[in-house]
Structure formats: C-alpha cells, structure tokens
C-alpha cells in the first residue's frame, strides 16, 4: 500500500519527535566545522548567479533567462549534484553565445571561475548532507588545487583574449587535435576503474 506524502511526513515526524525531542546525535569531535546546509545554500545561490549573470550578457528576453535560471536553480535545490551544476554551466555557455561583445566577452574571465566554483560546490552539496559537517581544514586541503586549475583556465583565457578577432587557423587545428586527444582519453578511461 502506497502511503501519501502527508502520511509519510507525519510518520517521520512522529517517529522523530514522539517524545517531544529528537533522537540524540552521535558525537564526533573535530576542528572548526561548517554545516552542510551552508554548502547547499551556497550551491543554489552560485547556480542562480551563474545562469543569471551569463544571461545578462545576452540580448535574450529576460523571461527566458529567468525561466532557465529558475529551472536549474530549483533542480539544484531539490537534487544537488554534478547534474544541475554542469547543466548550469552548459546553459551559461549557450547564453553567452548571444553576447553582444563577440568575438570575446571579457566577462568570461569571471564567469569561468564562477562556473568552476559551481561545479565544485555541486560536488560538495551532493556529498555532504545538510546535517553533516565539513572541517574547515578539508576545504584548505583542496584549495590549492582549485586555485591552480582556475589560474590555468584564466591564463588560457588571457591568451585567447589577446588573439581574439584574428584568423589563427593553426589554433583551430590545435583545438580539434586537443578534442580528439580528450575523446581518446575519455574512451580509454571508460571502464569505470580509476587508473
């Protein structure tokens, strides 16, 4: 027999608060911590900010941008994870196609780090439940890597900005070759086992 949502919520509430107090929590002593709901809230805000900011660079109608942002934001709030994070990234890229500052919109120099932050927050939000905790030292442990990745992306962006508007055929050929190399890497690693 399938119970209604209201009945499930009521059963959960009764099982949790029947005595007027919740069950005690297992104590885990660690350093300074951040609650998981902060990461989830930050992820939702970052997703909305990315899509809206990218939409603001285009001539698209506002209602369409708001629709995109609303759908992705709701998805991020309900089921945070790599799915909404990367869909928000692709949506931002599609919106950026309509930018009036073509062929190179300088806003991408802060949109790209924001996009990477969205993907990283998506990972944190999907792995840390709202009631769980993250030690601040854990953030610091992975921060240096994220800084290197963003710095490398910005270096590529700066180079692209310098070359923007010029015909560089060899660069296109290089890009296609890089894409082929990436595809080969992806196919080679697609057996599920990490190497």
């Amino acid at each position, binding site marked *: 027999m399938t119970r209604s949502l209201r009945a499930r919520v009521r059963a959960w509430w009764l099982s949790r608060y029947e005595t007027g107090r919740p069950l005690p929590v297992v104590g885990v002593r660690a350093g300074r911590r951040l609650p998981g709901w902060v990461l989830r809230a930050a992820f939702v805000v970052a997703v909305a900010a990315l899509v809206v900011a990218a939409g603001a660079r285009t001539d698209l109608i506002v209602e369409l941008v708001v629709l995109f942002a609303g759908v992705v934001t709701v998805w991020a709030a309900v089921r945070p994870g790599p799915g909404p994070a990367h*869909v928000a990234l692709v949506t931002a890229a599609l919106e950026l196609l309509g930018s009036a500052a073509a062929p190179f919109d300088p806003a991408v120099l802060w949109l790209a780090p924001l996009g990477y932050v969205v993907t990283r927050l998506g990972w944190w939000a999907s792995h840390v439940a709202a009631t769980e905790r993250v030690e601040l030292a*854990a953030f610091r442990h992975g921060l240096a890597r994220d800084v290197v990745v963003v710095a490398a992306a910005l270096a590529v962006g700066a180079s692209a900005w310098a070359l923007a508007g010029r015909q560089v055929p060899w660069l296109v050929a290089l890009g296609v070759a890089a894409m082929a190399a990436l595809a080969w890497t992806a196919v080679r690693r697609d057996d599920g086992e990490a190497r």
Partner: protein
Amino acid sequence: MTSSSGTPHGGPTGSPGDAVWRRSPQAAAGLGAGVLVLGLGLLVGRADVALLGVAPLLGALWAGRPGAWRSATPGRGTGVAIDPTADAAAPGELTAVLRLDPAPGTELVHARVSAPGHRTAGIVVAATPRDLPLTLSTVRTGPQRTFHVDARGYGAGGTTAEDPVSVTAPDRLVLPTAMPLQRVPVPRRLRGLTGPHTSRRLGDGDELRDVHPFAPGDRLRRIDWRTTARRSPDLSTLYVRRTYATAEATAVLVVDSRDDVGPDLRTWRGTGPQRVDEPTSLDLARHAAASVAGALVAAGDRVGVDDLGRRRRPLPPAAGRRHLRRVLHALALSSPVGHPDRRLRAPQVPADAVVYLFSTVLDDEPLALVRAWRAVGHPVVLVDTLPDVRGAREEHMRLAWRVTRAERDDRLRRMTAEGVPVVRWAGDARQEAALRFEALVRADERHRRGAVGAR
C-alpha cells in the same frame, strides 16, 4: 562503567587493501560538459564560450595537486579502525576513538558514524592520519551495540572515490549504576556466627540480653562487677552480662528479565527501536537491583542473583565488594534468551533469605512465584519496574493498554492485600524508594518489638 565484549557485528578495523578506487560521476560530468562547451566554442569560433569549459575539463582530467603534480590514484584504501579503549567517560556516555589512515593521494575522507538509537553524524575531514573522538549518550545498561562507521576516501578534486569501508566497534557491556539507599528490609531469621545484625541467639555482640549468674563457659571479661557487688556482696555468686550474638542476612535478587518494555507502547511488540535516553523495564530492574545489592553489601550482608528469563545456575549469595562486582556483571547480563517457558516451581532460594523480585507484573507468573516463596516462609519485597507508559495515539493500542493496566493494577492490589510490600521504581517514585525501604524496615522493627513484648 563499561567493559568490551565480542564483535558479533563486524570487526573494529577496516581492511585498506580491499578498497577499489573508481572514477566519480563528478569526473564524468565534468569531462562531458567540458568537451561539450569547448567543442561548441570551437565550432562557432567563440573563445570566450570555449573558455567556460576549460576549468571543469582540467579539473576532471587532472588527478594531481600542487606538490604531487603527477599523482596517481591511491594504491590502497583508507585504513579505518575504532579503538574502544578510550579514556574514562562521564556517566551515561560511551566513548571510542576513530582512527583514520588515508592512503597517499587521498584528498578528503568522508565518515558517517551511526549508533543504534542515535541520529547519524557525518563529517568530512582532510586526508591526514588522525584520531577523532566519538561519544554517544545512553541510559541503557547491559550489552550495547555502539559505533558503526562507514568511511570513504576521495581523490583530488573528488574525481575519484573509493568503495566505502565499514567498521563496527565491539559491543560494550554497560554495568548498572546504583542509587544510595540507607537501609533495606532483611529477613527476621538471621544466619551465620557473625555479621552486622543482632540475632536472637546468645553470643558475642553489643546488644544486652540479660544479667545472669556466672556459668561454666562464660568469659571472665563478661563479669559485671557492679551487679555482682550489689547482688552478692560476699562474692558467693558472680554475675555476667550476656549479649545477643550477631549474624548476617541473606537476600536473593530475582530479576524478571522476561519483559524488556519501554515507555513507548509501539515498541512493546519488539519491532520498533527503543530510545536510548529512556530506560526500559529491564534497565530499571538492573538499577534497582544494583542499588539494593549495594545497600546490602555495604551493611555486610550476603546477596545472590537469579534471573527468571534464562535457565542457568543462579549466582549464590556471598558478601564483600568483590562479590558486588560479580552481582553487577550478573545483573548487566540478565536478559531473556528466546521465549522462556513458564516455570513449574519457584526458583529455590537459601533458607531464611529475603527475596527481592524485580518485575513489571505484566502477567500472573510473578504473583504465583511470590505466593510460592511466602508459602515456605520467605519474606518477599516486590519492586515494580514498569516505566511510566506514554499514552498511545492509536485507538487499538489505547484499548489494549487499558485492559493490560487494569489487570496489572489488580495483581498489585492483590499482592498488597496479601501483605507483600510493593516498591515502585520508575519515574518520580524512584526518588521516594529509599524512604519507602526505610519505612518498611521501621515497620518490621516495630513488629519485632511488639512480638518480643508479647512474649
């Protein structure tokens, strides 16, 4: 006060060699989205669009980090162990230490710590060898399952993840604590040649019985010279002061462990989990029995333990602090084994022993046992260990509880009418238990004095 026992639910250490590292969905999504955005930018000739895909692509493909630029996937899993031999915990707390030993190349370790009756706690820590103190609070006694940990390591940027490693801490045996009691009822007939109580026999003791002419066997130091000088100035007859001998009392604590019910009626069928911050009837019985045993041993009396829930040899009565420790262990281990059959006869107790029965009186068996003991001359004190039951919301449970409560009240009334003292131990009544025991002792003393005066 706890001690560790076996590990029937798993080992306290996780084997690091068994773990398998896999590429995470984050890496696959980053790779897919990065390639898509990069390809889109190349196709339309927009470097800014392509740039949006560079960082996610780099993050998904690069498994290294500063200081270990070409770091490979960790070669082993995260070592996880629970050390239950932690420092002494506060009363009502169980502690342990979670030891994490991540493999080189691991960036983060995510640990979820659960315990029966508790909400799960999750923590993400940096992947460095470290110890995390764990605590859980419980008022339950007896064998307790404690911590279960699921830990998982993540590689650089969360691009790789290992299979979770599960570890279960060994069970702990929580000994019951004791509440200080002043005096508790003891049998009228005492045994032994020495002890803390005054018996009716002549012998060495403090309480004066009478003054009697000296007889062979009397000790010279017992001669009362004042009385002799008054009654026999010529010293033709010597008078001695005779005293009552001392003796010890024997008590048997009978724990009715066939029921282990809590305040929540929904858990009485044994299906729902019982809260760890509310004592069940068995916890109350252990606590009450430990308190009575402590008071008896402190007074120098002998205490034994029997369990109605399991067929095994009872702990014979003895005295002393070391025996009290044995009593506490026996009480902590008292729990029903299977479905105990109805006893055809009452457990045998030593002659002249007082019986303390700790029961919920939810069926007729305690009534039959009490009558059987009293029929052969054993005084019985019934300690009611049913917790204060909360009202049920469901109509059928409310009705069932009304019937059960009426039957139980009727049994208790019958026992009181037959002269069996009933001491309630649950809720606020527990604070008055010491006074109730003292009142019983004084009533018994008055009764004895009245009987002696009548003679």
